[in-house]
């Protein structure tokens, strides 16, 4: 369903548009002014005139979109006047520097959730509950089969799995931006202080996390590992795209695992051919989605990404909240796809 004309936010071919602020939120195409919820590639695209984003995401945005972008860093909770609108960014708990964006003008307030999660994550600021009249929420994992354990518990499983194979290397696949650093931060909390190997794609994103003061074990880029080093008992963190790639030839005998919310379903793990699946997601699970939507006190909810039809129907029929799926180019990561690129 499209957004009603005349509202604070509109759906334009470039993406979600706020006429009062003359700004687009996570636009799909180059626009003069973009408000960015977070630096994942399906939310932050190159070519815009100016970017408004939370300061702690600056390093990663510049790494991904180019060092020369015109970026206006903001703080969480700070109120900005952009055009006719008042705009504020609030922590979404998704990855470093991720935000929900709240817009207000003409007596109407909207909240665009971006991607968010409710579980504790030592690598980023926690989710901040925010209220608004209208909420646009994601629904990547909008099914009750998705129910997360705490990151600390999953990290303990990962550690036990790693320690169970002292005679060979372990390769842990996870998204290079966000998940990899979350896993490292959780491992640090469990007392891991030995060096972890990193695939180049993960290594590139470590700087901003170290600068933000996220405590993680020491890491070594794979490229700097001496030839012929003993790999037994070592842990390598690599992005899913490297699974079965030639670059990891030295790790042919390794045990492997994949860290993702999709791993909750056995078929999803078997289809990808991973040994162990660790269920850890940077998106809200079913309960987290419901809790956040209720907490927003929104009178109207629009649902994007993934299970938008299912979640909207549930909100209407069971929760009694006016909700509709919002159609557009909101690409959710899917079951069988790697990190959106």
């Amino acid at each position, binding site marked *: 369903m499209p957004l009603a004309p005349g509202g604070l936010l509109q759906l334009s071919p470039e993406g979600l548009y706020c006429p009062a602020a003359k700004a687009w939120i996570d636009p799909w195409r180059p626009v003069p002014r973009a408000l960015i919820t977070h630096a994942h590639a399906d939310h932050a695209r190159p070519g815009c005139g100016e970017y408004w984003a939370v300061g702690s995401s600056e390093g990663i945005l510049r790494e991904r979109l180019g060092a020369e972008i015109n970026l206006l860093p903001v703080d969480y909770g700070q109120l900005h006047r952009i055009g006719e609108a008042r705009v504020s960014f609030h922590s979404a708990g998704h990855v470093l520097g991720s935000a929900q964006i709240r817009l207000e003008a003409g007596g109407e307030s909207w909240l665009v959730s971006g991607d968010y999660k409710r579980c504790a994550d030592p690598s980023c600021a926690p989710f901040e509950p925010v209220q608004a009249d209208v909420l646009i929420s994601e629904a990547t994992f909008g*099914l*009750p*089969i998705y*129910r997360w354990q705490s990151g600390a518990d999953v990290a303990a499983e990962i550690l036990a799995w790693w320690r169970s194979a002292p005679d060979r290397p372990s390769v842990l696949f996870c998204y290079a931006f966000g998940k990899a650093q979350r896993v490292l931060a959780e491992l640090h909390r469990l007392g891991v202080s030995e060096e972890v190997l990193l695939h180049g794609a993960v290594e590139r994103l470590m700087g901003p996390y170290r600068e933000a003061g996220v405590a993680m074990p020491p890491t070594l880029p794979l490229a700097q590992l001496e030839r012929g080093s003993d790999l037994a008992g070592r842990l390598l963190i690599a992005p899913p795209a490297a699974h079965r790639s030639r670059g990891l030839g030295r790790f042919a005998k390794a*045990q492997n695992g994949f860290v993702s919310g999709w791993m*909750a*379903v*056995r*078929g*999803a793990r*078997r*289809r990808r*051919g991973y*040994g*162990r699946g660790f269920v850890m997601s940077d998106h809200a699970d079913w309960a987290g989605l419901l809790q956040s939507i209720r907490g927003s006190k929104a009178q109207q909810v629009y649902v994007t990404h993934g*299970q938008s039809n*299912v979640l909207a*129907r*549930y909100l209407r*029929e*069971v929760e009694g909240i006016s909700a509709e799926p919002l159609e557009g180019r909101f690409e959710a990561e899917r*079951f*069988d796809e790697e990190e959106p690129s």
Partner: protein
Amino acid sequence: MEAFAGLFQQLDGTASTSAKLAALEHYFRSAPPGDAAWALALLLGRRRKRLISGRRLREICLAATDLPEWLFEACHSQVGDSAETVSLLWGQHPASTIDGTALSTWMEERLPKLAALQGEEQATAIVECWASIPEPHLLLLNKLLSGGFRVGVSTGLVTRALANSAELDESLLAHRLMGGFTPSSESFAALLAPAEQGEDHAARPYPFFLASPMERGQLLDSQPGNWLLEWKWDGIRGQLIHRSGGCSLWSRGEELINDAFPELISLAEALPQGTVLDGEVIVWPADAPHPEPFASLQRRLGRKAPSRALQRDCPAAFVAYDLLEHAGSDLRQHPLHERRRLLEALHQGLQGTQPVLRLSSTQALRRWDELDELRDQARLHRAEGLMLKGIDSPYLVGRKRGHWWKHKLEPLRLDVVLLYAQAGSGKRANLYTDYSFGLWNDDGALVTFAKAYSGLDNSEIKELDRWIRAHTTERFGPVRAVEPLQVFELAFEGIQHSKRHKCGLAVRFPRISRWRTDKPACEADSLASARALLEQLP
């Protein structure tokens, strides 16, 4: 059940054969015999009895969690498996983290008791059961209840692990496992007893020796004369036994099929006691030059007590190609030419009194470069190719390369158009992988012709899935009709008339051999070309 659940997780969590073998051996060494017996039966896939249907589990889960039914359906289409969906949706925190009940107690007492209950009482008991076990065991329990327990280990691997753990000979164990294994600590102990001289296997068949697809390079070093060539028949493999214990006919799936083929049991009775034949069960009328297509045999399979009319319309025969036991002694280590000589003598001794016994004919080949020409004649004999067996080969267990090769006919092929798609289940849940294809009829319309589920690689499946979602014209429940634009080359082993199919034709073993992105739909094949293929057959 802790140990078995741990084994399940280990087997499920690795693709490495050596890791699976190690996990299995460790389990068999440490589990009490009663549990090990059940684990063995479950791993061999012999105990897939459904105690409670997936539908009933779903009902109980819906009532206990208060979720709307449509939401369950949405979850199920993501998961692709009822037992797993129920397990994921249950989601209540369990009362304990340890399951102290032995696997054998679950299998022999607790699960059958749950199955025997009715209505509300059953629902309450199952909910209590779910609440009492650790969360990681839920899936296992629901799989055992619904009879859907499966994990990626082959019979051969399980046999090897058990043989290693008990320090027994693998082929001896394979033989002892033939023809069924009823789990109990007694039967398990008997299974692992030390080998005895002249062990009596009563009605047990021998493990089948299997051929591998031909590797030409392996043949060229030897003379064609060192090989016995036979047609590869399109029936089912069988072992026909007459021992002091009685007569039996076993299928390759280790099922006793005496009841379905009374005429072959009569044949077995006419054989001398202490005889085991290996051969093909096939429908072949007494005076016909070649056998009937597989579809005729299908009418006989799984049919207990076939009517007289059916036996007359689809008369079964046994095409014997090996003699495994003669006058009570095991011939499997003797060279094939010797077994064959004894088989021929046995056949001759019957002096034509048993027309349902046919001796597999052997084909002569002078030079290797005439091999394919000979193979191509198989179709005229209604066979699916050639078998090549080393004349000195022993009769081994399972698939051991080098002694027996199969050289199948090139499949028939047609270019077909994708019409409908349906999502798969399990590993392929939520992914459109079950395809229906059509051919052009005389009026220039596409008519459904065949379904296929295999032949594309993972990246093609993904690409096609995306294309299907973007080009859906209509939805019928789980099925999507798509724009008729994509052409695929379909390979299949045989084609025949069929009253059950709209297009009047049925094909055997259809699979996709190529995605013809180079071909527009209008250049796909027609029903007329399919019929022409049929007419070329004898």
